[in-house]
């Protein structure tokens, strides 16, 4: 097909083959790793739901309606209402925005900064590497949530600060993994060649080394996505994360959901299911991605 096309279509042909290569890779992934494909499908559905929240949600997520307080799941409120009469389903739908924003934000920044630190540390080696490692050791000896709590206390709990608080504990974990893969890449002939060609450090790190740690980077990224969503819901549950009346899954489990758990269990069940499903999907996808890209990285 590519050969028979008119000469003017050359660019288009190139794009077409690239598209084909991609679609072939996607097809292989779906056929070879059905679990991963299911995970990816759930993630896509979640992204669509978050994007179209305004259209899909039957009610406004923050409007208080005391007439419908704590009503059971029914045809009007599919998943019932909470102690303020707010529709649980609508709050779940809007909550996916919070979860995905925090998840993607924290995972992307955390993995990227970690990757740059890890590669830089491996590339320069020597004393710089030693000091970076010691610094990472210090951060690593804090439990994830303790460090995140301390940072939230300092920065306050606006949404972007929450992302920072979740990102910072993740950076050293990523730097550690990336550094160990970068150490072997540093010895590759093409890095020597780049050095011999007189390229600067920045160029070698960014153009020659970073692209070659893409596999662990992507794996870490997907692993962090789930962890970030879990951490956000934990912080929100403690009342130190997202604040009322914003819809967030962890926040929905707080307070009234536990107090009225016996009479209105839907308030406690559904947000937890949403968190689990989201993290489950990311982990399922991430796992298969790891098997496909780099099965040796099992320590995540």
């Amino acid at each position, binding site marked *: 097909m590519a050969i028979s096309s008119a000469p003017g279509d050359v660019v288009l042909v190139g794009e077409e083959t690239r598209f084909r290569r991609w679609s072939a890779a996607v097809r292989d992934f779906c056929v070879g790793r059905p679990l991963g494909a299911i995970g990816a499908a759930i993630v896509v559905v979640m992204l669509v739901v978050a994007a179209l929240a305004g259209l899909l949600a039957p009610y406004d997520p923050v409007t208080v309606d005391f007439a419908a307080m704590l009503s059971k799941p029914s045809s009007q409120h599919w998943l019932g209402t909470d102690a303020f009469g707010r529709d649980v389903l609508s709050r779940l739908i809007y909550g996916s925005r919070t979860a995905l924003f925090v998840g993607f934000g924290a995972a992307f920044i955390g993995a990227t900064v970690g990757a740059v630190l890890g590669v830089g540390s491996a590339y320069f080696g020597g004393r710089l590497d030693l000091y970076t490692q010691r610094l990472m050791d210090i951060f690593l000896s804090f439990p994830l949530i303790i460090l995140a*709590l301390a940072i939230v206390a300092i920065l306050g709990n606006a949404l972007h600060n929450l992302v920072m608080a979740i990102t910072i504990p993740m950076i050293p974990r990523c730097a550690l993994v990336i550094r160990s893969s970068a150490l072997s890449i540093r010895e590759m002939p093409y890095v020597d060649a780049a050095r011999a060609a007189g390229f600067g450090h920045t160029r070698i790190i960014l153009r020659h080394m970073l692209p070659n740690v893409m596999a662990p980077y992507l794996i870490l990224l997907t692993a962090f996505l789930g962890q970030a969503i879990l951490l956000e819901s934990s912080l929100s549950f403690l009342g130190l994360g997202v604040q009322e009346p914003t819809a967030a899954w962890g926040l929905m489990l707080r307070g009234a959901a536990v107090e009225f758990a*016996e009479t209105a269990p839907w308030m406690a069940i559904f947000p937890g299911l949403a968190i689990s499903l989201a993290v489950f999907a990311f982990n399922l996808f991430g796992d298969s991605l790891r098997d496909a890209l780099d099965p040796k990285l099992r320590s995540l």
Partner: protein
Amino acid sequence: MKKYLFKRFLLMFPTLLGVAVLIFVLIRIVPGDVVELRLAGDSSSVSEKVLAEERAKHGLDKPVWQQFATWVWGAMRLDFGKSMWTGAPISEEIKLRFALSLQLAIMATAVAVVIAIPLGVISALKQDTWIDYTVRIASIAGLATPSFWLGIVFILCLLIFFKWLPPMVYTPFWVNPWQNMLQLIWPALAVGYRYSAVATRMTRSAMLEVLREDYIRTARAKGLVEKLILSRHALKNALLPVVTVICLEFAFLLGGLVVTEQVFNLNGLGLLFVQAVAHRDYTLVQALVLIVAGFFIVVNFAMDILYAWLDPRIRFR
């Protein structure tokens, strides 16, 4: 090997010092201090003089480096001073809570090990069968389920199906073991499920790797009973990374169960940390972090020794 372990031993101290510096600085960046918070409750018109006097009582008027030196000097002699909020000695504040957190961590570890190792081994042996898929899905779900929510669900189920609630007041094990178990088994199960998921996955992948080794083929070729191959040749070698994961998770459980403790109304170290930060109780926050991080660092070091002990290849290097 001895040289390496000695070096690792010495490295523990700069890391601990780093942790001390980090938390000392972090908690002081948090806006407000304990004196303001406590006196703000009385009235808004507390004079500057009273505030200054109160601060002097806690040593907060001294230069920062001096406060740090005093604290580190005390901590080195295991004297963490007094809580700025309650005035009680910190060792008193922490004692019971440490016992609670440690017991919970040990119980969760027991739950995890009992579930994880058999499941991981079976899953690896029956790779790509429905058993394997079920175990894998269950363990990925375990990683995805927030422990604190699982705790809520447990309480809810007990309440709805058995009309019974676990005791909400903590009884130490040495006072009434039965009452103590009744209370702690639920959080231990909730946390243990997630924990076992981590360990199951590691057992499975380590087993898969080991089963492809030449020495397993040799063992089979010489006609060794499959049971012996598994227990003596495969599992023994696959266990090292599993031990690592279990130890690391265990070390984190001590201070990392903040939310689960909240759900079960357990006054453990995690919850104490949240309260201490809210009160800007500098001495308590510092002591807690130093203990939790120190525990982690020591467990890490102990793991290195354990490694050498378990694996002669490392011992004789």
